[in-house]
């Protein structure tokens, strides 16, 4: 593929050269000559050629077609899309099969090879607060990347102290409905507390790190006030369903949520039978406690499939069940596992969220500050402040758009943004907040009417001065504006006066401010002259 793109690029350059030659020979024949040359060269080499209505001839490989729209790979950058109304003719010769599938960029090209019978595995990390950093969105965003990398087994490494209740179902859904559809999914727990444990509970295969913990899933808010009543029941019910997804006894999660005892027996076949009493042989919770499992208790209770502190130990455990595996990603010094592109999706997400969390307060205060500044100056001077306020508002909007829970955590809605937009517009009625309009405003000459008015006024004044100075000595004419001098020259010519010294003309020609000063000085001289 790369070779093909390279050849295409060379061909395109050759085509351009032929076109350039055509141009140098004469415009009238340039396009046909260039096009013909390119087309011939292309057809001979097996490329597609598209002639466009504006006279261009594009040569490359058609990679996609949908309803007359064509994407042609010219060998440079991403394929170029052409609308039906831009295309004059298409000559096909490339062997490439054209589909209507989305075009993939060069970065997406497959650079790996699958080893026969060896599953490809990748580690992705879900860390920090659930609903902000650990969220369904980056998990979803990573799916296409995992597929492109040919990943079969996804290890979700979790390190989180919990977070928002509302995100649990979303994460569980993404894992159960999307990840399990396409991949074998394994959780590797460093720390999964509260909402993090509840989110990971849909995963059947769980491995612990030696100092891992998992549980303490009691819902609360404010000053350690517990979720109660119907809301508690709904959460207990939700977790019963999620436990079923993860093929786990619901009693385990129940004992992590409320003060209920939990014990178990190990049956002859090695399976564990759990009881919501302390009558089993092994007691995990006596009922005066909220259950949190550690690596030892989890493994003994059959909750975890094993304990692995390093990627090598995890590989050994996984290979015992799925055979040899190949890790996807680059080994980076200081990183305990290969960093895949999907993992980068997660890391970038967390970096964005950290920036948001740390900087939201500052950006919001800056926004309000600029609004206050704008309100404190006359309308004509507000432009800069409002532009800045508008920029901060855009940043807040981006945070809101990027993170589905951002607005929820801060009480922001679409209506809030509309209200802020109105606020800005009210502060400066003439000011248009949208960027396109600002760009247009920048291109437009400033205050065209007043410029015209100024020119007219200058002309009027010139006429007056020419009239006044026509019979004055030449030195009195110094300091007149260029336009006045031209008019005066015209007057001189008409009245056959000698031309003035060029030095006098040049001194202040490009310096209106000094010109003005001189004019003010010159005037009394003129007036005092006889």
């Amino acid at each position: 593929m790369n070779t093909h793109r390279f050849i295409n690029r060379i061909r395109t350059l050759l085509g351009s050269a032929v076109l350039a030659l055509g141009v140098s020979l004469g415009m009238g024949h340039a396009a046909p000559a260039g096009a013909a040359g390119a087309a011939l060269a292309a057809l001979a080499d097996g490329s597609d050629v598209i002639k466009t209505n504006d006279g261009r001839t594009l040569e490359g490989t058609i990679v996609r077609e949908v309803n007359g729209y064509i994407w042609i790979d010219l060998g440079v950058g991403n394929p170029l899309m052409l609308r039906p109304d831009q295309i004059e003719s298409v000559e096909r010769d490339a062997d490439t099969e054209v589909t209507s599938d989305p075009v993939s960029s060069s970065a997406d090209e497959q650079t790996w090879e699958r080893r026969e019978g060896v599953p490809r595995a990748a580690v992705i990390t879900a860390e920090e607060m659930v609903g902000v950093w650990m969220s369904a969105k980056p998990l979803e965003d990573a799916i296409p990347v995992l597929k492109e990398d040919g990943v079969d087994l996804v290890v979700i490494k979790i390190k989180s102290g919990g977070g928002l209740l509302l995100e649990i179902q979303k994460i569980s859904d993404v894992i159960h409905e999307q990840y399990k559809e396409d991949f074998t999914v394994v959780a590797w727990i460093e720390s999964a507390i509260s909402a993090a444990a509840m989110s990971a509970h849909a995963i059947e295969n769980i491995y612990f790190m030696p100092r891992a913990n998992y549980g303490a899933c009691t819902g609360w808010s404010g000053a350690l006030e517990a979720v109660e009543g119907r809301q508690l029941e709904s959460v207990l019910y939700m977790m019963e369903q999620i436990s079923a997804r993860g093929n786990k006894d619901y009693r385990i999660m129940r004992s992590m949520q409320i003060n209920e005892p939990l014990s178990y027996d190990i049956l002859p076949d090695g399976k564990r039978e759990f009881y919501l009493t302390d009558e089993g042989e092994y007691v995990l919770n006596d009922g005066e406690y909220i259950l949190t499992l550690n690596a030892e208790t989890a493994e003994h209770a059959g909750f975890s499939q094993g304990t692995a502190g390093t990627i090598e130990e995890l590989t050994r455990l996984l290979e015992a069940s799925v055979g040899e595996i190949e890790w996807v990603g680059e080994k980076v010094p200081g990183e305990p596992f290969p960093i895949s592109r999907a993992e980068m999706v997660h890391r970038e997400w967390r970096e964005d969220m950290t920036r948001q969390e740390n900087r939201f307060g500052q950006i919001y205060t800056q926004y309000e500050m600029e609004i206050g500044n704008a309100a404190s100056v006359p309308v004509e001077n507000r432009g800069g402040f409002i532009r800045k306020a508008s920029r901060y508002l855009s940043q807040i909007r981006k945070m809101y758009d990027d993170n589905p829970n951002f607005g929820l955590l801060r009480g922001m809605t679409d209506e809030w943004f509309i209200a802020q937009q109105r606020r800005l517009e009210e502060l400066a009625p003439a000011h248009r907040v949208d960027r396109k309009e600002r760009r247009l405003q920048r291109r437009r000459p400033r205050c065209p009417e007043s410029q015209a008015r100024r020119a007219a006024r200058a002309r009027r004044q010139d006429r007056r001065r020419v009239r006044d100075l026509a019979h004055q000595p030449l030195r009195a004419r110094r300091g007149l504006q260029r336009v006045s001098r031209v008019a005066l020259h015209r007057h001189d010519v008409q009245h056959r006066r000698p031309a003035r010294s060029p030095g006098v003309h040049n001194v202040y020609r490009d310096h209106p401010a000094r010109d003005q000063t001189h004019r003010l000085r010159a005037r009394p001289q003129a007036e005092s002259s006889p």
Partner: protein
Amino acid sequence: MLRFNTTRPALLGATLAAAVAFGAAAEPTHELLLTNGDTLSVQILEETETQIKVNVFYGTLSAPRTFQRSEIITTTALAADGTAKDDAPAVADTRSTDTERPADAVPVYAFELDGELGWDISVTPLRQKMEKAREAGAEYVIVKLDNVRAGLPEWVDEAIVDDAGAFDTLFQAEALVAPLTTEVRADWDNQPTIVFWVDRAMEGMAFIPLLKPDVYFTSDGRMGGVGDLEGMFGSMGDEVVRDKQESLRQEQVKGYAIEGGHTTMLVDAMLRQGDALWYRIENGEVRFEMRRDNEAPLGGGWERLTDTGEGEFADTDSDVVRLRGNDTLTLDADTAFKIGFSKGTADSLDDLLFELGIEDRAYIIDDNDGDGLADSADRIGQTWGRGLTSALRTLRNMERDIANIRIPENAGDRAQQIRESQTLRILRRAIQLLNRYEEVFDPNEQWRVNLELRIQQIENEIRRRRIGGGG
């Protein structure tokens, strides 16, 4: 025991030779990272115990300057193209490049974590020390723990301070875990043996020795002071939520014990009152048993580690001042050894190396002053401590400095401008310091955010005055 004591004249000679060689080309040979955050390209001219004399390069110009060693964080040799050599050892480590080390020597890098947790003992200096140990190729890293309890002056007898109630310093200690565990696994090609040598590991520091199996005590060593987890939240909120909070904290610490290969029952005893922990030796192995009452388990030979702390078993002031309280577990050298938590008791590095069985092969890295601890680690600790103190002073005085900005009498209309520019300079300096010491002063960036807002306010004011409108 061998000590790596490369003589300074030899080093100085080598450095000078290098300086002369490079001096001919008049190009920087090293890069200095200073404690004020500046990075300088330099040519080293002369080194003493406390100072380094260098030629500082600014573009094509150079000027001699002398730096105190305490002002320098790292010194990196530059490659011929002027870039820092990836694997070039720092100047301090040139001393560690041991040409005389016997082939069968066991390189040992020893350093101390002393001072106050969350202040002197912090993740950045620890990471730097571990990095030095890695660069020096240490096979054994000995970490001596000797922390001061927060807010407790050194002259106060620690015995009068209750061992209970400082559990949440766990979250300060938590930051130290990665450089001692995960990062070592990821960064070191050959995994070192990390040995904790406990003199004082109280409050949050008590959780650190749990991470490794090789723990030794000094003869008056103590580890604990994290009891009464159940009382931490008092009567705040609902009991079930308090239970949850206690549960997750307790299991986090148990995770450390599991990683270090210690029994989790010790953690229960260290954190909670209400249960009694007993032990006895069975077939040469220590067996623990936890009971809800104060009765000894069945059979003989049981020794009590803790009691329930209820009724007549509650610790008295007499017990506490004699360090004999046992409502929660605070380990001393004797008990720690008896229950197998500590592998031995050593009051000097030589004793410790003997306990470790490497006294004849141990090669102490980077110990020119003969105190048994790596000089580079000492320097890192001192630089960090001094930097923090100086930064704190600067930050404390910031408002006063702003209020006392001197305006020249003849400033006239420029007075406001001078005041603003100096205020901006002070605020920016404060942000620089907070960036450097963020883990101590401003972990959530909120202080910096406020300072940046103040800067913006001033800049807006300047702009408004200049053009009469917004920027």
